[in-house]
């Protein structure tokens, strides 16, 4: 079982590297992280927080957008591509379970994503430490951001596999992936914001809103990092909400989502008839 998962992971990692996905993901994370690190240098003095903590707050906002996007771009082709190339029937006659195939792909893609996250965050941290000796205080927040970003990536990679299995054609899978990204990362928050404005402090704001935030893996990720970080004040928007929701709840959400998404992907893959 382990051998089959690792074999799949090794082959997928090789394909990812040949398709330039490793280079693209690392470059994207590096460029955006360094831009944020440079841009974030201005307000640090006024807030009284160290440079790294401020950078972490900016990186959290960046990761909410960029990590799901890279994850979906890497994963939408995973099943649909095999269907289109005609490689799936042969693979499924091998003594390998479908969940083993998915887990192998996930390991490889998550490895690439982790590499990109570590490269980007690492570069930003080095830049912060270089200009502010007190930035060491923000290392714990950076570590928390790193592993939670990896979990966020695992969630959206798995969601991408699920869409890929449902769509069965790469073009349709790509459309669904972009739709999912827009929905969870952009429109979801806009919708919540509109509801809060309309609700004006009523039941929705006090009861539904916190649950809605936890139900979205991207929002839970943001909540968790902002609530845990000293730099809550540096972040706009969900700062107040982050303070109202206990840390264990957002932690539970970011831990459960990858498992749930992989479960959904496995169910969707089982329905694919080659």
């Amino acid at each position, binding site marked *: 079982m382990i051998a089959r998962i690792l074999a799949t992971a090794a082959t997928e990692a090789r394909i990812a590297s040949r398709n330039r996905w490793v280079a693209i993901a690392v470059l994207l994370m590096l460029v955006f992280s360094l831009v944020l690190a440079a841009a974030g240098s201005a307000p640090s003095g006024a807030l009284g927080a160290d440079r790294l903590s401020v950078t972490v707050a900016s990186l959290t906002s960046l990761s909410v957008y960029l990590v799901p996007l890279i994850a979906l771009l890497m994963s939408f082709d995973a099943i649909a591509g095999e269907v289109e190339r005609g490689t799936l029937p042969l693979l499924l*006659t091998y003594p390998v379970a479908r969940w083993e195939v998915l887990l192998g792909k996930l390991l490889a893609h998550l490895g690439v994503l982790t590499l990109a996250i570590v490269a980007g965050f690492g570069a930003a941290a080095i830049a912060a430490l270089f200009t502010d000796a007190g930035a060491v205080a923000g290392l714990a927040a950076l570590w928390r951001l790193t592993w939670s970003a990896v979990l966020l990536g695992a969630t959206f990679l798995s969601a991408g596999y699920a869409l890929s299995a449902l769509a069965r054609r790469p073009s349709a899978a790509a459309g669904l992936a972009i739709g999912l990204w827009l929905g969870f990362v952009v429109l979801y928050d806009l919708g919540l914001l509109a509801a809060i404005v309309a609700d004006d402090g009523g039941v929705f704001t006090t009861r539904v809103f916190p649950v809605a935030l936890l139900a979205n893996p991207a929002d839970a990720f943001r909540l968790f990092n902002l609530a845990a970080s000293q730099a809550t004040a540096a972040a706009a928007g969900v700062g107040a909400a982050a303070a109202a929701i206990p840390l264990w709840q957002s932690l539970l959400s970011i831990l459960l989502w990858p498992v749930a998404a992989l479960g959904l992907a496995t169910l969707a893959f089982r329905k694919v008839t080659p």
Partner: protein
Amino acid sequence: MTSTLTISHLTKTFDGLAALSDVSLHVAAGERVALLGHNGAGKSTMMKIILGLIAADKGDVTVCGAAPGSAEARAQVAYLPENTAFHPALTGLEQITHYLRLRGESPGQAIGLLDRVGLGHAAKRRIGTYSKGMRQRVGLAQALIGHPKLLVLDEPTSGLDPVSRRDFYALLDGLAAEGAAILLSSHALTEVEARTDRLLILSKGKLVASGTMPDLRRDAALPVALHITPCNGYAPDLMAAFPGATLLRGDVHLTCAQGEKLGLLAQIAAQHSKVADVEIIPPSLEDIYSHFSRRDGQ
């Protein structure tokens, strides 16, 4: 007799259309069986059911004593799909290494397998640069992994040149001699009749013929043709002697049933002074194939 593959009363329907109806067959260990039929006759559907890729509607299928598609069956069955495809970014060596690992075999065998199918020289090139015939050989190499008990080969020789085809059938002979059961599909009866032990003909989802080539020839009972070349000027005499004959480019053409062949020859021999030559033309393999595959209402 140990049967590696047993199918009884298999039926499969797609959207109300019968792809396979009441098909029963078996393939024994060490036996090479060819599955023939037109496009859409149900060959690929049957193979996919044997492999567990799609489920049957009715009937029983047993593969190496297990249910099709079960982990136990998959561990013992090798498949070569029609138009076999691989990821273009991988090299032949990497692809075979991957398949070896999935079967729990030592990755070190990869280069040996590629050598066996004549791809050793291209092992480190990406499959994206391969020709169709080369991809087919990668497919064949993966089917050889781990001494499978049953090989299911969907049009294995399409895309192969005649020399490669001969090598391919030599490989199959070796596998069958080691006890593997082989089920392969083909369009061409001429190609498989000498290289397989038994032939099955599917037509519109029904098994219309099964047996060795002599069996099929006898069952088909197609007429034998006789061409008589008359001595100069005797064509009219011969035409008069054989009422059913036709005259074509100066030759007298006759047909008769298998059982009447010797009697007719004796009659021709009686006219020997007027006959320059006689040729007996048995029904061709393609005639026999057409006979069976058209029998059902076409």
